[in-house]
């Protein structure tokens, strides 16, 4: 080492440069934060969280978590979060099932089914989600007939007053059943599932296509049917390719659920928006929103990474 000046020291120099760049970034961030705090306090908008304990004064419809206007803002936001989780969890299951069916239909020997799957994916993928949600809510669900004219399907009644699951009956012109889903939730769920399923279908199709043709041929020569081949041979192997792709689709679905406000569903975003308006605490509310969606997506990511580790080939 002796004799090498420090500015030509190949080990020291990169460290010095990194330290300098790091320091500069820190100084810039500190400057911006300091300025932010200074200007926010000058405008009387300095971060404060006390308002979270004040009574909200507004109502939230269809809450799983009991809520009324006397409860504080944080309870309103929590009720909104639970509503978001409800639509995300049900949506993930629905989109996965539908997406897998459509994705595997691309390998069906039935030409009609194959083309239908293709058309579905192309149609849904190329129309903005917001437009689809507005379509489902305002054009489809709100046009449902009410009372005796309601659409009756086996185990499901579609009426303007809601979607009734299970054996339902008309009592005094009002439908009554064991489970009622509101049109808002129904429209949001339908929109999210159908939208996400199109993307998931492509991920599944890609995964299945990545399995060498020899696997299909080998399965067939062993006498397995098409369905057996798909379920027992191809899909389990395809999971290795599918899972990482699914991860980002799941995250998208969670984020897209914030479009709920377009069809009148009280999710976290809708409640936060009302809160923002009533309290005027724009920065705090947006920070809460950012933090919550970030946490939600990171949680989904963590789960999917776990699953990914499970489906990878365990080499010894």
């Amino acid at each position, binding site marked *: 080492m002796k004799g090498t000046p420090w500015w030509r020291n190949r080990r020291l120099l990169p460290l010095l440069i990194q330290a300098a760049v790091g320091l500069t970034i820190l100084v810039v961030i500190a400057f911006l934060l300091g300025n*932010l705090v200074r200007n926010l306090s000058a405008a009387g908008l300095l971060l404060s969280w006390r308002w979270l304990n004040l009574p909200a004064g*507004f109502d939230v*419809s269809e809450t799983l978590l009991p809520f009324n*206007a006397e409860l504080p803002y944080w309870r309103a936001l929590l009720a909104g979060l639970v509503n978001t989780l409800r639509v995300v969890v049900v949506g993930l299951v629905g989109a996965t099932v539908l997406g897998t069916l459509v994705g595997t239909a691309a390998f069906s020997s039935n030409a009609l089914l194959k083309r239908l799957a293709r058309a579905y994916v192309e149609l849904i993928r190329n129309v903005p989600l917001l437009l689809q949600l507005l379509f489902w809510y*305002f054009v489809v669900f709100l046009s449902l007939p009410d009372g005796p004219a309601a659409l009756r399907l086996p185990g499901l009644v579609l009426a303007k007053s809601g979607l009734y699951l299970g054996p339902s009956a008309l009592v005094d012109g009002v439908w009554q059943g064991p489970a009622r889903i509101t049109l808002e939730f129904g429209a949001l769920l339908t929109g999210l599932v159908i939208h996400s399923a199109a993307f998931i279908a492509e991920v599944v199709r890609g995964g299945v296509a990545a399995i060498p043709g020899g696997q299909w041929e080998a399965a067939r020569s062993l006498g397995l049917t098409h369905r057996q081949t798909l379920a027992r041979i191809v899909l389990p192997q395809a999971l290795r390719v599918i899972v990482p792709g699914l991860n980002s689709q799941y995250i998208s679905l969670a984020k897209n659920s914030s479009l709920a406000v*377009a069809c009148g569903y009280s999710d976290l975003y809708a409640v936060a*928006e*009302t809160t923002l308006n009533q309290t005027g605490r724009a920065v705090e509310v*947006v920070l809460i929103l950012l933090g919550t969606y970030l946490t939600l997506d990171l949680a989904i990511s963590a789960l999917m990474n776990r699953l990914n580790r499970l489906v990878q080939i365990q080499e010894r």
Partner: protein
Amino acid sequence: MVLNLRLQLACSLVAAMALGGCASDEGGLQSQKLALIKGRGELICGVQGTLPGFSSVDSDGSYKGLDVDICRATAAAVLGDPNKVEFRDLNPSERFAALASGEVDLLSRNTTYTLSRDAAGGNGLSFAPVVFYDGQGLMVPKASGITSVKGLSGKPICVETGTTSELNLADRMRELKAPYTPLKFQTSDQTYAAYLQGRCVAVTTDRSQLAAKRTGFPNPEAHVLLPDVISKEPLAPATVNGDPLWSDAVRWTVYGLMQAEELGITQTNVDAKVAKAKANPNLADLRRFLGVEGDFGKQVGLSPDFVVRALKAVGNYGEIFERNVGSGSVLKLERGLNRSWKDGGLIYSPPFR
């Protein structure tokens, strides 16, 4: 898209605060906002945009309405030209962030004047005088047979999110101990679409707005306003708190429109009145009001004849009312509380003294 815009607004607020220089308070007659507007040569005014009578786009593509005329009067007072206004349509949730971040200079968007919106510890706005005294009402289909708020117990009610209507509804229903389902939408178009599709039995907002929206319904006669008025809704333009001179300029421009009605000065006779004031040194009140003598204009950061400019652009308050929402419009609203105090109403300007 909607989400992006909202986040963008909130983010631009943060960014503006982080990057903005430390505003130096030099005192005296300094207004950053006035200087900015004059430099830009244009006033940016936040409006509702789809509310007939208050602010909506006409068939020829220009904005019309009472709220719009307040913007035009202000532009005329500040810049001398009522057409130097850029209108921005804002929904209830965007409006305060848009004002706070400086996206708009003036919010003239049927906004209710309340404590929490005015307070520095709340939304921190600075309100101009009330330009429309309103009250919240409910509209139901005539065929529903509902005649009072009590009849709405247990029913879904459509309301726009982020409005005082939403809170008043919650308060009244709580008082009546009546359960209900609030269906909240982000824009008024969605709210009324859901109502017209029959998703809710009633829609609630300010009565003037219900009347205005009803004119656009396919069958306006099939809908009635319930007699109950469940709140008071004084609608006022607002500016951001922290630029007193700019707030004064807006406030006194609006008062000028009201004072002119009281003095019988209209869009058509304003020139004659100015000539009369100039010729007659004894008419001190009129001379001061029209800027022939004194420095009232300067005191609020405007030119001496700012009231004359505003009047030439849009006429006095009474003319603005009748043209947009009163007898000269499709809404045909009574002046009611919005008469001048001399006729028993609430429209009252402090003296130009």
